[in-house]
């Protein structure tokens, strides 16, 4: 999930999810980056409308609401 958390971090900071930016974040988190995987994730995310997905995910949180403490 690291690549996705890092991508969402960039997204919520309104930065482009580019190979360089993603690499920077992952490296700062102490993760040794796999170049092949990096390219694949960046390419695949280009085809995803992240805002749309997040909106849908956020439509659910009512469920989250009553989580045990």
């Amino acid at each position: 999930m690291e690549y996705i958390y890092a991508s969402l971090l960039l997204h919520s900071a309104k930065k482009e999810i580019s190979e360089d930016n993603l690499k920077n974040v992952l490296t700062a988190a102490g993760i040794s980056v796999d170049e092949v995987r990096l390219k694949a994730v960046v390419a695949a995310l280009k085809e995803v409308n992240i805002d749309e997905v997040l909106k849908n995910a956020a439509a659910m949180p009512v469920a989250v609401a009553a989580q045990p403490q």
Partner: protein
Amino acid sequence: MALTLKHKKIPAWKVEEVEELVNLIKNNKTILIGSLEGFPSDKLHEIRKKLRGKAVIKVTKNTLFEIAAKKAGIDIDKIKGYLTGPNVFIFTNDNPFSTYMFFENYKLRRFPRPGDKAEEEVIIPAGDTGMPAGPILSVFGKLKVQTRVQEGKVHVVKDTVIAKPGDVIPLEALPILQKLGIMPVFVKLKIKAAYHEGLVIAEKDLKLDLEGYKNSIAEAYRNAFTLAVEIAYPEPEVLKFTITKASKNALALAAEIGYITSESAQLILTKAMLNALALATAISGKVDLGIQVQK
């Protein structure tokens, strides 16, 4: 000497039949052994017709089959246990499981015998039965089938159900059903085992659990998808779910630590509110809280 004597005793038709069986065994990968116990032999014709080109159906004596099997090089000990009672042998090159499934699914009909249960609704149809009026009228009466006599023949007034699925078919109805050609009882050929390329597959193993296979496929798919989501398999469709998961994780964590942002505020407040409502509901019978708690 003894041998020649013995040979002389074997009638020609038996020798021919064994030869035919040997050929069938050699030319087919699969032999199914079916029991003819209680199976109306006239129904074999229907099966033969249905399987023409795919399988050869052969009724023969177990002893002859045994001789032929030995000649064809089959280890007879493996199948000897199934060579009892009247049997039919089905020779095919098809998949043994598929062939078994054919017999499982292929329902033949027969006339009911005393004590048989109906396997579908038994209906005496309206119209001319062709039966001359006479004592039979009282039988119809017993079955609560309304009749009238027209030109000396029994006419049924309207379609009448005389047995529901699972009911024992009334004894007195049997001759009427015979006359009317109604066969509400199913019969299937019971396959005891399959011999396939040196292996014997017993009946219980021949029966394919299709629901089980469906479940396995669904499970395999779920496993694959879960794994794909987990490793952020770089396919847009998969990543959507990975993102959803990451986002929900983030929201849940934010809610847990009361980290309020525009995204998490609703979630956190809703959680607090739900907790408050649950508690208010728990004591609502005892305390006037000055609010209305919906139950």
